[in-house]
C-alpha cells in the first residue's frame, strides 16, 4: 500500500516537472508519432514485397510493434532516467540519502524519476496490439490472452532483472557508467520476430540480452504457438531472474561505502 502511495507521489512530482515544459512535451509526442508513421511505412514496404515474414503476417507484426512499444515505453519512461540518476548518485555519494530512507532502496532507485509523457506510448502500444490482432484475423482464445499478459510481465521482469544486475555492477566498478548501453543498443531488435535473425543473433537476444523474451515470445503465446508447459517455464525464468537480481543488488549495497570514505 505504501509503495502505491509513493508511486502516485512520484507521478505527481514528475507530472509537475513535465507541465513546466509543456511545449517540449508536445514536440516529443509529435516526434513519437512521426516515428510511428516511419515504423508503419516500413512494415508496409516489407509487405508490399512479400505476404509473410517467416510465417508472420502484417497484423501480427503490427501487434509485435505494439508489444515492443510497451516494453520500450517502460524503459524510456522509468528505466533509462533511473539509470542516469543512479550512476551519478554512486559517483558523488548522494546514494547515501536513498539508502537511509525507510523504503526498499531498489524501489526508490527504480521509480523515483518518471518521464511522464512517455506513458502516452502505453495507449498507443495497446491500440497497436488490438488493431494488429483484428487485422491478422486470427481467433484469440481467452487462454492465449492470459498467456500473453503473463509472458509480457515475465519478459519485462527478466529485462528489469538484467538491468538491476548491470547497474549493481557500478557498486564494484564506479567508472562503469556505460553499464546499460548493451541493453539500449539491442532494444531495437525487438521490433521484428527473433525467429528471423541468424542463429548467433537469436541466441544473444534470447539468452544474453533477452529482449525477445518480452517481445517475440509473448506474441508467440498470443498466436497459440506455445504450450502451457512452455509458458510456465518462461514464468519460472522470470521469477528466478528477479530472485538472482535481488541477491546481486543486496550484495552490491553491502559493498557500497559512500563517496567520501
Amino acid at each position, binding site marked *: 500500500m505504501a509503495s502505491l502511495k509513493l508511486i502516485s507521489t512520484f507521478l505527481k512530482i514528475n507530472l509537475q516537472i513535465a507541465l513546466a515544459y509543456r511545449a517540449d512535451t508536445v514536440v516529443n509526442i509529435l516526434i513519437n508519432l512521426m516515428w510511428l508513421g516511419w515504423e508503419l511505412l516500413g512494415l508496409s514496404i*516489407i509487405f508490399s514485397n512479400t505476404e*509473410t515474414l517467416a510465417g508472420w503476417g502484417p497484423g501480427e507484426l503490427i501487434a509485435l510493434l505494439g508489444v515492443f512499444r510497451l516494453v520500450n515505453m517502460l524503459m524510456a519512461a522509468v528505466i533509462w532516467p533511473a539509470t542516469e540518476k543512479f550512476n551519478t548518485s554512486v559517483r558523488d555519494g548522494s546514494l547515501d540519502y536513498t539508502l537511509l530512507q525507510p523504503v526498499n532502496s531498489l524501489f526508490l532507485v527504480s521509480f523515483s524519476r518518471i518521464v511522464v509523457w512517455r506513458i502516452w506510448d502505453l495507449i498507443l502500444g495497446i491500440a497497436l496490439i488490438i488493431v494488429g490482432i483484428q487485422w491478422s484475423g486470427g481467433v484469440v482464445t481467452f487462454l492465449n490472452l492470459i498467456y500473453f499478459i503473463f509472458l509480457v510481465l515475465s519478459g519485462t521482469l527478466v529485462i528489469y532483472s538484467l538491468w538491476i544486475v548491470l547497474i549493481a555492477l557500478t557498486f564494484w566498478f564506479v567508472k562503469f557508467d*556505460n553499464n546499460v548501453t548493451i541493453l539500449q*543498443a539491442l532494444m*531495437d531488435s525487438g521490433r521484428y520476430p527473433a525467429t528471423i*535473425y*541468424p542463429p*548467433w543473433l537469436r541466441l544473444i537476444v534470447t539468452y544474453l540480452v533477452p529482449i525477445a523474451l518480452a517481445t517475440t515470445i509473448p506474441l508467440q503465446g498470443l498466436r497459440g504457438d506455445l504450450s502451457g508447459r512452455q509458458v510456465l517455464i518462461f514464468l519460472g525464468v522470470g521469477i528466478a531472474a528477479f530472485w538472482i537480481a535481488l541477491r546481486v543488488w543486496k550484495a552490491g549495497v553491502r559493498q557500497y561505502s559512500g563517496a567520501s570514505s
Partner: protein
Amino acid sequence: MLRIYRRLWQVNWAEQWQYRANLLMYLLYWLVSPIVYLAVWTTIANSRGSVSGLTTNDFVTYYMTLLLVDQLTSDITIHILAYKIQDGTLSGELLKPVHPILTNTLVNNIAFKVLIFIVLIPVWSVLYLLFQPAYSTVTVQSVLIALPAILLDFGINFLLGATLTCLAFWTTRVFSIAEFYFALASLLSGQFVPLQLMPPIIQQAARLLPFQFYIYFPVQLILGRVLPETILSNYALGLVWLAFSYVLFRWVWREGVKRFSAVGA
C-alpha cells in the same frame, strides 16, 4: 592553410581519442539496425527466391557495404557544434581568422571517422565471416568510380548537417528538428531498404533528393549495379546538391552568427 589543418588534426584527434570507450558504445548502437534489416530482407528473399530481382546475396552484400559506406559519408556536426552555439563557447572559435566550421568541425568529423574505422574493421571482418557475402560484382573499377562519389556524398551530408546545426542560433529545439531530418534520411537514403523496393512515388522523390547520396548511390556504385548513364546523371545531380548545400550553409551561417553576437553581447 595546410599547417592550420595539420595542427587542428592533432588537437581533434587527441580530443576524439579521449572518448574511445564511448566510441565502442556508439558503434554497438549503430550496428544493430542494419543487421536487423539485413535479417528481415534475407528472410524474405530466402522464402521467395528473390525480391524484385534481388537475391539473398544481393541483400547481404548491400548491407555489408552499407556498414562501411555509412561511416564514410556520415556527419556528426550536430553533436560537436550544437552545444557550442547553445552555451556560447563558439565565441572563442569565432575570433580565429579561419572559418571554424570548415576547419575545426570538419577536421573533428574526419578524426572521428578514422578512429571509428580502427574499431569497425575488425568488427566488420567478424560479420563478414558470419554472413559470407559473395562480392563477385565488385571490381577495382567499380570501387574507383565510387571513391569520388563517397567524397562528394560526405561533402553534401556535412554541409547539410552543418546547416541544420546552425538552426541552433535561432531555436533551442535543434535536436527535435534534427530528428525529423534523420527519420527522412534513414528512409530515403536506402538505409532501411534498397531504394528500388520502395513504393514508386517515394522512389521518384528519393531519386531527386540528396539523401540517396548518403548511402544508396555509393553502395550501388561499389557493387557495380549502376548503369553508366545513371552514374553520370547522378554525379551531376550530386554536384548540384553540393553547390546548393554550400550556398545554403554560407547563408544560414552568416545570418546565424549575426544573431549570435546580438545575443551574446
